């Protein structure tokens, strides 16, 4: 019942011009909030505005952002979000470390993406049949984490690959590789959602699944593709992480799921599906990274940080929900 509550929206056939304007407005609003926050933060703590710190924020935002961008496909296709991303990241990290240390970097990379696509397909097909992404991904998450522990023998797997090290630590044109990939992901995903057939189908499935089914769309295919996008995004993040630190273990990214979800939610992508763009998830990730960084610099305890992020998420979903005018 709770998943189909918001299904009865009017078909999203309003002029795409209006939609574009709304997205632009949202993005501008987000940028304003971020600039205002950064200015206030900079005044109250001078370390916040140093160049070094900017790189720290960008790199932190990149890692969360890549997953958040990928997860926005799920949200836009009406499947809320996945609780399995952090566990999948750990599994992918272990797979990448194991395959790279035994077959070398290129084959390792290929095998890892193969595993990611398979994991995405498995989740997508299950969710398409069962209908509740939260519970399905909760289950898949534990299984992924278990496999990660099994594959790594529950110990640290180290890799020794110059190519991987370059990928993880290089700074082409002075910007970390992670951030280049983050920007690239944001652009590519935005283009997929806005300018391809699959993107259009994803939006329709999210905004009105009944209409999508009636017009002959294969909902299972769209859901599966959204999950594959999510898995591949997670894989990119996990590989970058392994490359940066040259090691992987099964308890990597423990508890990071909420950061990814928080980025998507704070970005303001409509949870009923069909509205929003991957760019919003990217902006959400940057906002969360700025906030986290500011709180860290001011020595907030981890409990207080978590409470504030949680409160921000609850406030964000409530406000966006009220703005949509669905309140009793």
């Amino acid at each position, binding site marked *: *019942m*709770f998943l189909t509550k918001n299904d009865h929206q009017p078909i999203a056939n309003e002029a795409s011009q209006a939609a574009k304007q709304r997205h632009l407005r949202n993005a501008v609003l987000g940028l304003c909030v971020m600039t205002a926050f950064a200015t206030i933060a900079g005044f109250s703590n001078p370390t916040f505005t140093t160049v070094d710190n900017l790189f720290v924020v960008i790199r932190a935002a990149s890692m969360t952002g890549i997953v958040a961008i990928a997860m926005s496909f799920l949200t836009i296709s009406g499947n809320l979000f996945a609780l399995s991303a952090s566990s999948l990241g750990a599994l992918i990290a272990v797979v990448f470390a194991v395959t790279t240390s035994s077959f070398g970097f290129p084959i390792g990379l290929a095998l890892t993406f193969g595993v990611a696509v398979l994991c995405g397909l498995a989740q997508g097909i299950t969710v398409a049949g069962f209908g509740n992404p939260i519970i399905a991904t909760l289950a898949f998450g534990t299984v992924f984490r278990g496999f990660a522990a099994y594959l790594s023998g*529950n110990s640290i797997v180290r890799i020794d690959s110059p190519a991987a090290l370059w990928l993880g630590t290089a700074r082409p044109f002075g910007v970390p590789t992670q951030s280049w990939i983050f920007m690239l992901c944001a652009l590519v995903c935005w283009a997929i959602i806005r300018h391809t057939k699959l993107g259009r189908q994803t939006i329709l499935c999210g905004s009105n699944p009944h209409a999508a089914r009636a017009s002959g769309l294969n909902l299972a295919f769209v859901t599966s593709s959204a999950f594959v996008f999510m898995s591949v995004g997670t894989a990119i993040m996990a590989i970058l992480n392994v490359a940066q630190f040259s090691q992987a273990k099964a308890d990597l990214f423990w508890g990071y799921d909420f950061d990814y979800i*928080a980025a998507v939610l704070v970005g303001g992508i409509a949870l009923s599906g069909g509205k929003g763009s991957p760019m919003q998830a990217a902006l959400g990730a940057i906002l969360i990274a700025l906030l986290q960084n500011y709180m860290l610099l001011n020595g907030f305890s981890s409990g207080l940080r978590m409470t504030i992020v*949680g409160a921000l998420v609850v406030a964000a979903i409530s406000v966006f929900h009220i703005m949509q005018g669905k309140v009793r």
Partner: protein
Amino acid sequence: MTNKENLAIGARFALMVIVYAIFAAQLQSYYTVAGVSALLTSAVLTGLICVGVAITMIAGEMDLSVGSMAALSGIFSVIFFPLGLIPAIVLATLICTLLGAIQGWCIHRLNINSVVFTIGTLIGIRGLCLFISGERTALIPFDRIAETDVLVAKLWILTPLSICLIVTFIVAEWFMSRTLWGREIYAIGGARDEARAAGVSLKRPTMIAFSISAGLAGLAGALLSLRAGSASPLSYETVVLEAITACLLGGILLSGGRGRLLGVAVGLFTIRLLVSGIAALGAPFWMQNLAVGALLIIVIASEAIAKIMVRRRELMSTPDLIR
């Protein structure tokens, strides 16, 4: 209760007996008094929580914040312990019930997807746990630890905790099937629009369901923390997985309105027997979570297949549509 329902619960009971038999063949602790007592007590945490989760699922909603709620209650119960054992448990449970009522009110008022909202509160309450406890494990003063001994007392295979679990199941089953408030929860889960048309207010059942789930999570957290003499702000993170698996295995429908708490009890013990058995056979700790996850995927997959079969049968029985 119809015959069909009886049959479904019977089949689930048979599955539980099979799991029991498989492990009992290899493990002595599955039929000794001490072993059974330990099994019952180990089911208390998940058991109390899954009653609450089941009630929210019957209402067609979902409460994912129970793990954080239990941890919060554990910390409160240790803080209130100087007032005495029973007042500490009651106070911690009451605070959680109140938080749950607020949560239910917000979900009703905002008309928001409860999965999403409770994910937000899941993060927030976990942060609150860390904040209140100062990121340390809260401990009962060592010179007063003897006062908690009553919680580990044993009466044949029963302990105060397992008695609490059994009483909760009986009271909850009575509440859900015999009282007006319980029937309202079934009504808004099974057929929300029809229930509203018939004049059932959505506010009361929603608030009651979320109060019960938070309150029971609070009770579980308080009991377990006081029994252990300490409460960690990071505990009970994975309990929601087991609770949801127990509910689905026990025949609670995710779409709401269906399922009985008797079935949930069967589902709960199926899982506990499986997990304890795996642990007792000496498998590594991650194996337990893997087993629960795999079990949940099997339940989900079989439900998905059943759904497809039903849809196909409906299509077959309406020949006009095909031609």
